[in-house]
């Protein structure tokens, strides 16, 4: 305002006078802010005494590599008494990964059925019931402390079909009527815990393994983070955890399953589209579903024998790379130029 007024003044003020005016305005503007800050700084001083560091931290970086403490992986509030000291961490991981001491397999997976396992955990995605609410993604992130930018499970939303001319249609464009002859497909994606996982076999240091009950996991104490398994997974289900800097993936929430609970994504699914259970038990819900409905798996051509089954997807349930066939309306892929029909050569 000050500069505007002085510009309009025909007599013309000196530059110094303008600057003085500006400073005065700035000081006036800063006063309320300072008073506000003084009020804000009051309460924490009185609250002190809980023994915990103050809750508020100065603008934490959102980049997990610059700020490894932001999600608790390396949280300074978790002291030795919380079971995460250097000495007890190794024991804690053993408890999390394999508390019952089940046999683990790094290769030759045909031995698993031969070993007569007690359980064989599978998941059924009843996509007829999936509404694409992404609650499973949120609960997985929350349960497993998955850092920003990476996902153990995600739900891609596609649209197939097209807008077609129809005299009765409800879409009016340039005086013509059209009808949306399209279908929205929600594809919950997760590690398939394959019966023949290529990611496990290629690990050079036997850090990743398949448990006797079918769960494929990574031991973060052993992984060297070489990325071979990430590249070997045909489903892009693995990633390098930017905080722990080892390979990471869905574990079917193994700590919950071992405690007799369901995986977090299953419990949070509003439409009960995700069903988890023991395929060896003929009375389990997954056995009933798979016996009753036709089902398919993602990318059967790779021969990995996935153990996550999809009901309600007729035909190909893999992503078609052609956006003209299958338009990705919602994706978690941040590094690809998805949704750009011109980016792909479609012949």
């Amino acid at each position, binding site marked *: 305002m000050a500069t505007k007024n002085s510009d309009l003044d025909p007599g013309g003020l000196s530059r110094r006078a303008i600057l003085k005016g500006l400073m005065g305005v700035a000081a006036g503007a800063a006063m309320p802010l300072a008073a506000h800050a003084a009020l804000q700084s009051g309460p924490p001083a009185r609250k002190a005494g809980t023994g915990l560091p103050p809750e508020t931290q100065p603008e934490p970086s959102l980049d997990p590599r610059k700020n490894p403490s932001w999600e608790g992986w390396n949280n300074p509030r978790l002291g030795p008494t919380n079971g995460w000291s250097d000495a007890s961490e190794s024991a804690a991981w053993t408890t999390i990964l394999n508390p019952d001491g089940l046999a683990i397999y790094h290769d030759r997976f045909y031995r698993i059925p031969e070993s007569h396992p007690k359980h064989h955990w599978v998941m059924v995605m009843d996509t007829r019931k999936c509404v694409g609410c992404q609650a499973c993604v949120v609960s997985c992130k929350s349960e497993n402390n998955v850092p920003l930018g990476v996902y153990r499970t995600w739900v891609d939303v596609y649209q197939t079909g097209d807008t077609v001319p129809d005299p009765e249609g409800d879409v009016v464009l340039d005086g013509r009527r059209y009808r949306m002859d399209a279908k929205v497909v929600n594809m919950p994606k997760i590690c398939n815990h394959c019966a023949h996982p290529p990611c496990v076999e290629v690990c050079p240091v036997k850090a990743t393994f398949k448990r006797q009950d079918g769960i494929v996991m990574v031991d973060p104490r052993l992984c060297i983070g070489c*990325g*071979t398994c990430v590249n070997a997974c045909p489903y892009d289900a693995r990633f390098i955890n*930017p905080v722990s800097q080892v390979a990471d993936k869905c574990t079917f929430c193994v700590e919950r399953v071992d405690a007799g609970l369901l995986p977090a994504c299953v419990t949070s699914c509003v439409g009960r589209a995700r069903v988890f259970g023991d395929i060896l038990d003929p009375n389990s819900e997954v056995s009933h579903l798979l016996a009753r409905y036709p089902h398919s798996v993602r990318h059967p051509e790779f021969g990995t024998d996935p153990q996550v089954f999809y009901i309600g997807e007729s035909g190909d349930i893999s992503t078609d790379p052609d956006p003209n066939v299958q338009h990705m309306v919602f994706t978690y892929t941040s*590094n690809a130029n998805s949704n750009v029909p011109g980016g792909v050569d479609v012949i």
Partner: protein
Amino acid sequence: MDFANSTQLFGLEHVYWQLPLVAYPFLSGLVAGSFIVGSLSHVFGLKRFEPLAKMAIIVTLAFLIGAALAPLAEAWQRERFWELITRDHFPYSPLGMFIIVWIAYVILVLVEMYFLFRQDNIYLAQHGRGWRKTWHGLLTFGSRNLSEPSLKRDHTILVCLAAAGIVLAFAFHGYVGFVFGALKARPLWSSPMMPVIFLISAIVSGIAAMITVYTLIQGGLGEKPVDSDILDGLMGLMKWAIFVDLFLDLIELLTSGVRSYASLPVYRGFSAIFFSSGPLAFNYWVVQIGLLIVVLVMTFVRPLRRSLAGSNIAAFLALVSVFAMRYNTVIGAELQPKASQGLVRYTPTWFGMDSWQVVIGLFAIVVFLVSLSLLLLPWERSWTASWSNEGAAVPVLPGAAAGHAAGPKKGGTS
């Protein structure tokens, strides 16, 4: 936060194997290629290339160490490298197999170096000056035997080692190809051609590297001037390697770039990445294929083949072309998404993890090791003389006479 353009975050469809993994097959290709060149005189009786033997084995060792450091530079928990030996997933994991072949190769190269430098080391252990006397005494492992039968035995051992080394060189580099070829999740990697393509371009780059190193070492530090016969011979070898390499490139193009012949995922990936508007189209058609054809033409021109500048320019172009081939193979296949659409975005960075900085650092380590060996090992007989007490007088080693006596009988020429 702009997730789409951020190279900081991982996320789905991230290019996990970046520039160090491009340098990895390139460096190990130079290992295989330079070793095969070095073995030419021993195994195939090509006496012309005898001056290259010592140089080749040292360059091989330096590249071998660099080649093993490259995948470690890519690994996020590289301080756990010892697990590769203590917990090796042998023989199921391609990388687990690699470490076995690598260790065997290092042992073989060290043993071969011992026998190649034995005569000079013994001479210097007896006549060397100052610390060299102790150092070369250590390198002889106490052996002082320079008699005729022992030298003949050396020669036999060297021939056997070089022959075994060629097998290992093929296994070593073939396995590097298999590290990629074994990953069926990437349609452009999952090809039985992979080990062969890698091996042949390894030989091209190895010969090119030997031309450059020979010019630098012999031209800069050697007693005799650069022998244009050797340059000519190396260029002639490179010609045939490039022929085979281009033939394999053509097969790859036919089996992945033609929709009628290729499987759909392979065709889709190949055409989207390497054809007209693809992100690596220039890198493939101009740098990888184009430069190789230019080098092939150069190898046919006799004056260029024999000239210092001509052969070195050809060698440099061949090295650039082979590096581009590694880049196209390693990065190119990762640009094809596995679970989504479009193409994965990737721009190599200059600094930090997985950047050009790391690649330059790896090459700096190799150059450092080669330079160190210039100081510590007698590459040339004239150096042996200047390092000994006798001064500039060239020593007449009993081994030199014996070696020349044995030479014509074996090779038939010279």
